[in-house]
């Protein structure tokens, strides 16, 4: 029972990683990050359930709050990026190239 939840969390997390690494659209990358966060949430909730402890719930709520704040900030950044180059391709933004 417990294992299934964790398998699902791992699968979701890996999907998120693959999305961040392979996709070039800023929105897709962003959604992949959200996916990874929710995978972590799922693991928290699962462990909380098994151990009958509320700490996991607390952390899950906290992650959601942070994710919401992050979404607000990230979308603002996305708008600025778009204003700057009129594109949402992450390969266009490579100012840190050494």
């Amino acid at each position: 029972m417990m294992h299934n939840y964790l398998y699902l969390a791992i699968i979701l997390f890996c999907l998120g990683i693959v999305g961040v690494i392979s996709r070039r659209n800023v929105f897709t990358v962003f959604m992949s990050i959200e996916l990874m966060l929710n995978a972590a949430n799922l693991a928290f909730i699962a462990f909380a359930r098994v151990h009958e402890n509320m700490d996991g719930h607390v952390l899950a709520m906290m992650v959601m709050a942070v994710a919401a704040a992050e979404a607000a900030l990230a979308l603002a950044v996305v708008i600025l990026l778009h204003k700057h180059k009129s594109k949402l391709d992450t390969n266009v933004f490579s100012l840190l190239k050494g």
Partner: protein
Amino acid sequence: MEQSVNYLGLIPLFPLMGAVFIGLLHVFTCNRAKLPEKVYGILACIGPVLSFVLALKVFIALKELPAASRFLSHKAFIWFSVGDLHIDMGFLADPLSCLMLLFVTFIGSLIHIYSIGYMGGDKNYGKFFAYMNLFLGSMLVLVLGDSPVVMFVGWEGVGLCSYLLISFYSEDRSNVLAGNKAFIVNRIGDLGFVLGMSFLFWGIGASGFDYLSLKANVQNLEPAIALTVCLLLFVGATGKSAQIPLYVWLPDAMAGPTPVSALIHAATMVTAGVYMVARFSFLYAGVELAGNIVAWVGILTALLAAIFGMFQEDIKKVLAYSTVSQLGYMFAGVGVAAYSAGIFHVFTHAFFKALLFLGAGAVIYALHHEQNIWKMGGLKAKMPRTYITMVIGAFALAGCPPFSGFFSKDEILYSALATGHYGIWAVGVLVAGMTAYYTFRMIFVVFHGEPRDHHAYEHAHEAPSVMTVPLIILAVGALFAGFFNLPAIFGGDQMVSHWLAPSLSEHHPHASVFVEIIAIGASVVAFAIGFKIAYSKFGQGAPAPSYKGFADFAYHKFYVDELYDAVIVQPYKAIGSSIWKVIEPNVTDAPVKGVSRLYMVLGAAFKVFQVGYVRVYAIYMVLGLSLMSLLLSQSLN
């Protein structure tokens, strides 16, 4: 046994406060509407005069105490205290420093008053008086300091002020160079002083580093260290008091305004070295070799400077070399352990040298800054007061009885003879004759005969009374100061020697009256011969001579400056530039540049990982976190 009086600290404080106040006033007003010169002049004289009044008070207070316990002290505050070393900002007045105090403040005040007239019209009038007050204040710190460290503060202070004042007319590059020279040469001497002080502390400093403790513990000092300390301190004295081999700065110091020369030569600065040796008489008295070295260096300096003095054409340089020469006598005196004689010569010399300088200043002032004696002549009629006072000063300098210089110089020569230093005595008598010659050569050429430059002669005029009154006061001093220490043979009671006795570790030599008569007779004969030669050559006026052979060599000061330049300055510059051009780029810079090159290479290597795509950074993050997780799980197992 010592009494604490708090007004002692005020003596140096008055001129120092004056310096700060006048300096600020000058800084805040020099670019705007200028204050009248009178304001500065009066402000500048307040400090020295108040110090003189307090010095008199100190003298009276000391006189009331019994001779053996004539100490007044004042500890202003603890300056610093590290380990064994406890230094108070303390002042000590004993008979020795009290005598110095009296004439330093007295002559300093007169020179300040004279400067009001001499410096009239100068655009840096305020700055001049600020420096002068600072100079006097530093000298008073030097004299009153109760430990070598406090003395050193004053010692450096007078060095600084001499630099500031010698290069006072700083528009002219040669004046600035003269100031630099004075400062650098003094620094060389100061190094000796610092080293000597360190050795002294190393030897016996742990049980108190003020003079009284040092004096009490001096017998614990090992002889070798005592000799080292004496010689190193004397190196300091040769710098400050212009002895061989560091005398070269003093003649160049004539670049400054004439009152500064008077202050340096008479009251402050050059007498510091003699005072220091007398102050450490408890040390020098125990090391005969050091005393002999001091005496011989002194008398040879006297001889050398007298030779130079005979061929100079600048009126101030004649006087400068005469000062070097007289300082040589003083060191000869303190060297043969006749400390009171040396200090007494400092005392009388202060009067007649200040007088001669201020007189020379009046002549220069009258001739609109002409200093070449071969362009003067016949000024006797135009400047009678200056003439008479300067002749008195010249007689005192030449050592003619009964002028003050005779008694003090004779005391030194007599002490040398009585203690068996015949060589020093013989050279001393020779120099006495030369002194008479070059002094009166100057007097005759400047004041007698026919005017050589008629244009300058027509415009010459007597100086204003603010300048001549100090001259007259100093002339009275130059005439009578000798009677303070009249030797027994003239029916005197050697007042100054007895007054100084508690401060100094000296044993008066007992010699027969015969020896004393020989000493006096030789001095008088030497004076008479020197005077006679000068009179026969220059008494009726003489043209400017052209020097040949030895005279030319002496006129160029034996090329000592050039020698120093070739032997010390140029190699030093060569070493400096070789360090700059060879060692610095190849030795010291190499590791520094190597490190920067290493980071450039490393940077280029790691550059390839910085691709700039956010996806790649995500990969790095995933890899890193995975690695961390693996390691973590390994360590947990």
